[in-house]
């Protein structure tokens, strides 16, 4: 067995294990977030459908659907890597991975890969259930695919960072509730940032999640608050920065090897 073959097989095994882990509790990890997104759609859609039009012609419920899909993708991609790592750290079974010959690249690819899989599965579930509630076009599908994968991969790596840093569940919950959740909610899931006052409009443009959601919406409607190319550049830059930090911390064994 060559080293490369071993690395690939090892990475594939860890990816398989991480996917199997969330799939075994699919009711909690897939069905529940889909239901939550549908409830958001029903409540906000019902309250605002007749009062709000976005980009001139897009109905509010139609506008809301891609936002909810991407919100679900991001939150679940984060939850997957962060919860898996912190559970393994606290229960001590991370030792099985630490004793293996897997490199930091293998850890990274598998954990982030599983986050992308869960984010995409939940996002697809939300889309499949919500698309019947309002007319939805798919103007430029390549943007949809790119921003789903890039958004999930960026937040999956953020989850990995949180999992490495945290020493207890409380800290993961704080990371999720005080950083990921506000960044998601304030990124234009429920509104177009173009309608915000000047100050908050500017603040929104500092949030990388805004570009993920805006670029993703562009794929559906062909219009967005900023150019999808700008979103692509910001998201790619953020992605690479998070990945680089994540790989560095994994390589030095930050808080996992002493």
């Amino acid at each position, binding site marked *: *067995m060559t*080293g490369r*073959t*071993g*690395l*690939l*097989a*090892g990475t*594939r*095994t*860890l990816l*398989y*294990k991480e996917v*199997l*882990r969330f799939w*075994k*509790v699919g009711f909690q990890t897939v069905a529940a977030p889909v239901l939550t997104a549908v409830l958001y759609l029903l409540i906000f859609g019902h309250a605002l459908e007749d009062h709000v039009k976005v980009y001139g012609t897009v109905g509010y419920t139609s506008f809301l659907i891609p936002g909810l899909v991407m919100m679900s993708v991001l939150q679940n991609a984060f939850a997957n890597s962060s919860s898996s790592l912190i559970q*393994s750290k606290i*229960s*001590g*079974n991370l*030792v*099985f*991975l*630490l*004793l*293996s*010959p*897997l*490199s930091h690249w293998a850890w990274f690819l598998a954990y982030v890969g599983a986050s992308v899989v869960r984010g995409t599965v939940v996002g697809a579930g939300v889309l499949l259930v919500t698309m019947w509630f309002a007319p939805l076009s798919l103007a430029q599908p390549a943007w949809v695919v790119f921003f789903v994968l890039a958004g999930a991969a960026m937040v999956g790596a953020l989850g990995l960072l949180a999992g490495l840093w945290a020493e207890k569940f409380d800290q993961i919950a704080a990371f999720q509730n005080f950083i990921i959740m506000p960044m998601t909610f304030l990124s234009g899931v429920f509104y177009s940032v173009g309608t915000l006052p000047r100050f908050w409009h500017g603040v929104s443009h500092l949030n990388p999640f805004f570009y993920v959601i805006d670029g993703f919406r562009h794929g559906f409607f062909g219009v967005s608050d900023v150019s999808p190319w700008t979103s692509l550049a910001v998201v790619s830059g953020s992605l690479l920065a998070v990945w680089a930090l994540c790989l560095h911390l994994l390589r030095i*064994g930050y808080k996992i*090897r*002493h």
Partner: protein
Amino acid sequence: MTAISFQNVSKTYRSSGREVRALGGVSFDIEAGEFFGLLGPNGAGKTTLISILAGLSSASGGRVSVHGHDVVADYAAARRSLGIVPQELVFDPFFSVRESLVIQSGYFGIRKNDQWIDELLHHLGLADKAHANMRQLSGGMKRRVLVAQALVHRPPVIVLDEPTAGVDVELRQTLWHFVARLNKEGHTVLLTTHYLEEAEALCGRIAMLKQGRVVALDRTSALLAGTASTMMRFKLDTPLPPSLAAQARVTGRIVQVTAHDPAEVEHVLATLRAAGCRPEDLEIGRADLEDVFLEIMRGDARAEEGAAP
């Protein structure tokens, strides 16, 4: 051929603002095919040394290699040669026994490993638990799975870090039978244990650690022969005479006193008689590894006291 080599391994870390030395220049080699025991009291540095060997911790200085592979620079090859049974009873609650073993094989790049997994399950008495979830297993069964997980990649070197702590007699027998067989087949075994009778029965060579330093390193037979060869054991209801108390080990009513020759046995008995003590159930036998261990630990402490300014 050297299976494991520790060369001047040191480990210091900061705790509550002060520098703690866990290991201070530990050096010894374990040859391929040996059954080697690593003994020492709690806090001696045994688990720290195993952690550095396993890559769970990094050494502050020195070098550790497994079959010639440096555990830092060439960690993948070193870990492929090592099967480590961790001290803590850990498991992944999401998976069954077989799934855990298939996944662990995969981490080592081994995909079709069913035949060896079946063999491991059979030899460790886990065959009927293969599809049980890890959460459903008793502590002893979980320990067996840990052993199986350490062996899925057929490592030439097996490290058991206190594997029988708190497990029942049946598992201890099963485990030692299996590990002894692996050793006979050529695997190198490094064992840390608190059960000194286990080390005496199984290990051909032993290193004793105290406060991060090797205080004894020899063949088990040489260690047993080289120290007090006689041990007096008796029960006593009255306090020991002060002149004997310093050299005795007292557990409740049971007193154990080392004696190097028949004259010393006579002297102990005379001292007891003179003090009005009436020893019951007196036995005189060979010192075992526990006696050797305690004598070395005590001797080392006395040497330290003597060296203190």
